[in-house]
């Protein structure tokens, strides 16, 4: 007779067959059978968080730094609703998550039972797909399909809601089928004609630019290698979105820095003036494009993406190539080489004027700031952190706000999967739990959460998780006592009416660290900064670093308000010449 397994056993058998090693979760009434089963599966380690949102973000950090799907286990009702922010965050940033939630027993569904909520209803808009398991015999199929959906095509979160009686019920178990076809939804639709067209456009271009995004990183380390080869082969300049940082070396000469609202002067001007824009795995986000009507007006546009619905969603393109970034780039470079079509040499002359123009823009040094010898400038803090950590393989997470932009601008990433930030949803409180997840995936590596004091308080409780599992994450708080980005907008757009953006009461972060059982360090002046950062790195325990920075610093450059890419607002020096007009205020 075939052996029958309980629903809880089936869940773990699926996780084992999917090669899951870590799950992030929080127990509760409706998932107790699954938690009871945990002890029988020593290859799977459970990380107990302090809040379900933390479990979700930790799984995101785990997934983005390792390339494997993150797995979350939560209970019904509040357990499920607490994880919604993290699911939405993962959905916006294309992070593969599999969330398993408990549900009240089948016969109580719809009766407003204790800790009941319509979990699949609530999470429908923030998952790629979700399932409510009503029949135990469906459980193995659904569990395997969940991993397939989460990791295939454009990755994203999925949720499997399992009522408590199903966790007890018994059924046969099936291993995952190899090569499951998701109704033709696996997409590599491009053909040779597309590649030929792309190469034709590339050979004609006088002012080309690559604009690459998170899709390159999601496609895998191979895609990043191939991208480097393509960029070097063509000699074209390259800029990256926030999520794409690390796909191409940040310190390479062909790299123009990040583009978009707080991107560099050269990257945004190149986007505006180019005659060929090649988008690889990015989605023309509104923080990138600025004013749509005046976005890159003179260029032919190419969009390479695995998600067909990303094409022509915001910006109409001239050539769309639907496929996995790695395969498209691979095919392109192969064809370039086959035709002995070394653009770098043959086109060097052709695009040399373009590079000269770019060099001119570079002389603006748009990331410059006025440093101080008495007060720590936040940009300086990030630069010092970079200089003191660049010699080891460092993973950076961030919260959301000014510090996030400064980190993106001043920390140079040379490898993919080293940069975890909440871009699409912009979730304050993302960085600390994400750092927990990253450290779980990479126990020996240095993991730093570049944070703001307002963001960190949103998920502060997870420091307790880090202490429990000896995860030596470093929480580098750039403390200016303001919600900095809110304050900046209020200064620039709302006549300095700093409505509710100042935190009048903040904890003593050093004492707080000690109370949690980790180490607190405080830096108040620039001359002690290096020494304190070194101290932080040397400690093999979780550290909260309270870096007290200039309260009034604004994040520049920025594309203001109703202006296209070529009308950026640079730092304080430049500003007197370019006041934001009333018309311009809309886009900030």
């Amino acid at each position, binding site marked *: 007779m075939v052996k029958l397994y309980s629903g809880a056993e089936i869940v773990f058998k699926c996780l084992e067959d999917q090669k899951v090693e870590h799950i992030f979760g929080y127990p509760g009434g409706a998932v107790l059978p699954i938690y009871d089963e945990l002890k029988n599966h020593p290859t799977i380690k459970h990380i107990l968080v302090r809040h379900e949102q933390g479990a979700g973000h930790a799984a995101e950090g785990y997934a983005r730094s390792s390339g494997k799907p993150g797995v979350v286990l939560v209970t019904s009702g509040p357990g499920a609703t607490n994880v919604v922010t993290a699911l939405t965050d993962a959905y916006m940033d294309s992070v593969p998550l599999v969330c398993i939630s408990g549900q009240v027993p089948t016969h109580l569904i719809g009766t407003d039972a204790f800790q009941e909520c319509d979990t*699949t*209803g609530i999470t*429908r*808009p923030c998952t*790629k*797909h979700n399932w*409510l398991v*009503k029949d135990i015999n469906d459980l193995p199929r659904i569990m395997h399909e969940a991993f397939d*959906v989460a990791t295939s095509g454009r990755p994203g979160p999925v949720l499997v809601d399992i009522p408590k009686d199903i966790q007890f019920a018994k059924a046969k178990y099936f291993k995952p089928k190899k090569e499951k076809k*998701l*109704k033709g*939804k696996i997409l590599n639709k491009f053909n040779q004609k597309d590649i030929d067209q792309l190469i034709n456009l590339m050979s004609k271009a006088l002012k080309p630019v690559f604009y690459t995004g998170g899709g390159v990183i999601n496609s895998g380390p191979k895609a990043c290698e191939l991208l480097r080869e393509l960029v070097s082969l063509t000699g074209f300049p390259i800029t990256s979105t926030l999520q794409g940082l690390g796909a191409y070396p940040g310190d390479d000469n062909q790299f123009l820095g990040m583009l978009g609202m707080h991107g560099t002067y050269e990257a945004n001007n190149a986007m505006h003036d180019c005659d060929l824009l090649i988008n690889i795995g990015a989605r023309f986000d*509104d923080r990138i494009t*600025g*004013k*749509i*009507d005046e976005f890159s007006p003179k260029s032919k546009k190419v969009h390479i993406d695995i*998600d*067909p*619905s990303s*094409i*022509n*969603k915001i910006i*109409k393109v001239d050539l769309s190539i639907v496929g996995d970034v790695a395969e498209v780039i691979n095919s392109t470079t192969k064809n370039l080489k086959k035709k002995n079509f070394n653009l770098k040499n043959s086109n060097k002359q052709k695009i040399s004027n373009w590079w000269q123009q770019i060099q001119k823009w570079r002389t603006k040094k748009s990331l410059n700031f006025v440093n101080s010898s008495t007060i720590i400038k936040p940009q300086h803090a990030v630069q010092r952190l970079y200089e003191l950590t660049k010699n080891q393989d460092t993973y950076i997470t961030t919260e959301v706000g000014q510090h996030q932009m400064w980190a993106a601008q001043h920390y140079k990433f040379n490898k993919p999967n080293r940069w975890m930030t909440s871009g699409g949803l912009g979730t304050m409180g993302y960085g600390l739990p994400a750092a927990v997840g990253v450290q779980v995936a990479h126990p020996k590596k240095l993991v730093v959460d570049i944070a703001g004091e307002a963001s960190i308080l949103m998920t502060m409780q997870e420091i307790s998780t880090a202490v429990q599992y000896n995860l030596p994450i470093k929480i580098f708080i750039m403390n200016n006592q303001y919600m900095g980005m809110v304050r900046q*907008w209020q200064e620039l*757009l*709302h006549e300095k009416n700093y409505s509710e953006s100042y935190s009048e009461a903040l904890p003593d972060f050093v004492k707080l660290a000690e109370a949690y059982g980790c180490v607190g360090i405080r830096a108040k002046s620039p001359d002690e900064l290096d020494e304190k950062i070194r101290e932080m790195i040397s400690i093999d325990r979780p550290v909260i670093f309270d870096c007290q920075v200039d309260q009034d610093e604004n994040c520049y450059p920025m594309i203001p308000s*109703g202006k296209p890419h070529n009308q950026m607002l640079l730092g304080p020096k430049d500003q007197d010449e370019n006041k934001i007009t*009333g*018309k311009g*205020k*809309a*886009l*900030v």
Partner: protein
Amino acid sequence: MSKSKSAYSTPTKLGKLDTHIIVVWVDNEASVLSRVVGLFSGRGYNIESLAVAEIDHKKSLSRITIVTTGTPQVIEQIVLQLKKLVPVHKVGNFKRDNKNVIFKEMALLKIVANSSKIKKALNACKKYNPVILDQTNKSIVIQITALRKEIDNVTKNLKTRGLVSASRTGAVAMTRGAEIFN
């Protein structure tokens, strides 16, 4: 542009709106309709009418017919977004003025009036395949099949002829000739 202080761009000029009929073949499973309808409401697409029923019991397939309006870009997005949904098998997209596609809606009309008015009412429905489903000496229930606009007109005309209740379906669609949609 007004002096907006929004953190977002102001909307650009809207393109020309077209009416399309979107046909979606889906697995007939729990909550599939809410996924489709939720996609429309979540992304701000418009639904003019909706018809859904199982068409293949063995394969458990349902066919959803949605009438919607939007700019060409929005219609393209609707189709692409629908195709991403896991239970969706295929998506058909037809312009309403496409001559190769038949669109029909059905309506049940109840008229309570004297016999001469009822006669007039029936007469008004003549062109739209009227079927009398129930009749008493004071009332009649007529079934008609027609285009949305035609049904609009009929019901408007019948208001003065004793129409007390109208029940309508959404549009369903079928291609003409021997071709089938793939």
